[in-house]
């Protein structure tokens, strides 16, 4: 039966090449946009180099101190000491790293300035992240304890500062902000879309300008906790929350007293969404409104367009509908026939879209718009695309099929 439907669908496609081109163009363009978008979201949120352990990581990025009585608030990253006391000592995780977010700095090659993104980290950073060392090795607890002026740089900076070549740069000096460091390792770079790992230069936190000795609760540091396994995440969160509940209040910071402290260990996506979603303002409505609008534009409008094309195509086949009904096809069977046909056509569009997406992704990766971009069509992107194809085919097939089912057999046969 399905072979029969697909045969018909193929013949119908071949019957009107212009219609077919418009239909397939609409489907494949829409699906290409969706697939590229999915791939980009996967690039942003999925566990990719060097943050391959993201699925069992928790992020502590921003603390909020509040004083509801005076409507005062102070928010931002934490001090190194606060995180050492309250995160490093947790029992349930495998380990935790403390590092800064992204800072900026400069280096010079002759008179040419190189703008640098820098990060101060502890030694556990290299265990929580999964960097590939092209040359050398990461700094250790010993380097940190010794206060060694060592750095890990990425391959892009190596090429800019030392020039391209096979020669090892480990042990060579690099001068940043008039301070001389020794290169201890070179890593394959991480894209700037992964801000927890991205930097051109990684310093041990005991090197100058790290401000790790700040005594207050707030500072420049964030933390990433690595659970032993994904299932441990709730337990780690619970232990961290318990630790937060034990912090005595009020907290005095820069002369102001704060009666509440909000700090959460969140999964990667929630870490960014929580500040928006947790607040009882119109932001949440706006966010969902934008998402709904984008989805409607991407999926809804092409679906409506396809519905219209399909309605006219199906009505053209009134005689066939009459014949099938006369020989025993029920309305339900015919509705399924048209939905299956439509899904088949959508899948052809999906295959074209997959090829187009491959080209677009290759182009984005090679263009240099995003340094170290590694967009891919991996299994999750492919499965989501497949699901979108099914949904798209189903939605655009149901309305014409229902419309067709209302045709009386006698009228259909007269058509």
């Amino acid at each position, binding site marked *: 039966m399905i072979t*029969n439907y697909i045969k018909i669908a193929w013949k119908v496609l071949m*019957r009107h090449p212009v219609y077919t081109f418009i239909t397939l163009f609409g489907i494949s363009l829409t699906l290409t946009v969706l697939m590229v978008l999915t791939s980009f979201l996967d690039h942003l949120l999925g566990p990719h180099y060097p943050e391959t352990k993201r699925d069992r990581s928790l992020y502590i990025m921003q603390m909020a101190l509040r004083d509801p009585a005076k409507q005062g608030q102070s928010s931002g990253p934490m001090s190194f000491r606060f995180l050492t006391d309250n995160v490093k000592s947790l029992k349930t995780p495998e380990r935790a790293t403390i590092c800064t977010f992204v800072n900026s700095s400069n280096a010079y090659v002759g008179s040419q300035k190189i703008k640098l993104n820098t990060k101060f980290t502890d030694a556990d950073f290299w265990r929580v992240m999964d960097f590939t060392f092209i040359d050398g090795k990461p700094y250790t607890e010993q380097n940190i304890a010794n206060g060694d002026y060592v750095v890990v740089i990425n391959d892009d900076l190596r090429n800019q500062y030392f020039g391209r070549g096979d020669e090892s740069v480990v042990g060579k000096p690099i001068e940043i902000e008039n301070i001389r460091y020794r290169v201890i390792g070179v890593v394959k770079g991480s894209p700037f879309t992964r801000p927890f790992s991205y930097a051109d230069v990684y310093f041990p936190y005991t090197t100058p300008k790290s401000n790790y000795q700040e005594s207050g609760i707030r500072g420049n540091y964030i933390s990433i906790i690595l659970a032993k396994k994904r299932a441990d995440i709730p337990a780690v969160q619970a232990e961290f929350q318990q630790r937060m509940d034990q912090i005595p209040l009020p907290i005095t910071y820069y002369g102001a007293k704060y009666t509440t402290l909000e700090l959460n260990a969140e999964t990667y996506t929630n870490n960014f969404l929580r500040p928006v979603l947790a607040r009882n303002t119109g932001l949440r409505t706006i966010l969902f409104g934008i998402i709904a609008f984008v989805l409607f534009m991407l999926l809804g409008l092409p679906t409506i367009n396809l519905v219209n094309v399909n309605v006219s195509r199906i009505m053209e086949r009134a005689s066939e509908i009459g*014949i099938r009904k*006369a*020989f025993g*096809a*029920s309305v339900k069977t015919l509705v399924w026939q048209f939905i299956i046909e439509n899904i088949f056509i959508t899948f052809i569009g999906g295959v074209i879209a997959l090829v187009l997406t491959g080209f677009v992704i290759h182009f984005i990766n090679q263009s240099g718009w995003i340094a170290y971009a590694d967009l891919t069509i991996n299994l999750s992107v492919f499965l989501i695309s497949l699901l979108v194809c099914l949904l798209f085919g189903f939605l655009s097939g149901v309305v014409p099929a229902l419309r067709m089912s209302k045709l*009386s*057999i*006698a009228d259909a046969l007269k058509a």
Partner: protein
Amino acid sequence: MIKLTNIEKVYRTSSIETLALNTINLHVAAGEFLSIMGPSGCGKSTLMNLMGLLDTPSNGTVEIAGRVVTQYRDKELAQLRNQQIGFIFQSFHLINDLSVLDNVEIPLLYRKGDPAGASRRVLAKEALEKVGLSNRMSHFPGQLSGGQKQRVAIARAIVGNPAIVLADEPTGNLDSVMGNEIMNILQQLNTDGSTIVMVTHDEAMARKTHRLVRLFDGSMVGDSVLRNERVVE
């Protein structure tokens, strides 16, 4: 086999009401070959549609193979049509995008307990052999003559072995030679046990059936037995 009781069919639009059939009482016995004649617009095709469960009456009851179908829903009507009735149309109504074999298979696709693909092929080939078209199975309707198309339509009508074959002017679009060929096939089907109801404008064709019903302006105005050879229920 087919029993129509007090059948009325009214077509309504917002301003006009047309009585297409008026108090039709007709009983077609199993094995009978009945023809329906009448001028254009007298309700022949409407009557045929009601017998074939392609339309519903405004009043009265339709009984097919002992089952009153008044309360039947779409799915049940579809199944009854599939199991009991085969249709032959004046304009053939073949699906041009499908091969002859695929066209003939159509009724089997919707059969309850859907025969497997290979069995469907065998049954469709047998039906085409019966109408002498086994050498045109992979052709498409556009590659056939009118007579050949009608033979494909007959094969499609009989492939599911229905008890009733309804033929709406089956020779209307054919020349007399082709028309006679088709009539011979229908007579053979009747001899093999099928109940056949045929709408025709051709008196000579009607004379070859067992019984002739005449319609005029939506009413039955004649019912004559032509040859007393029918198989009685």
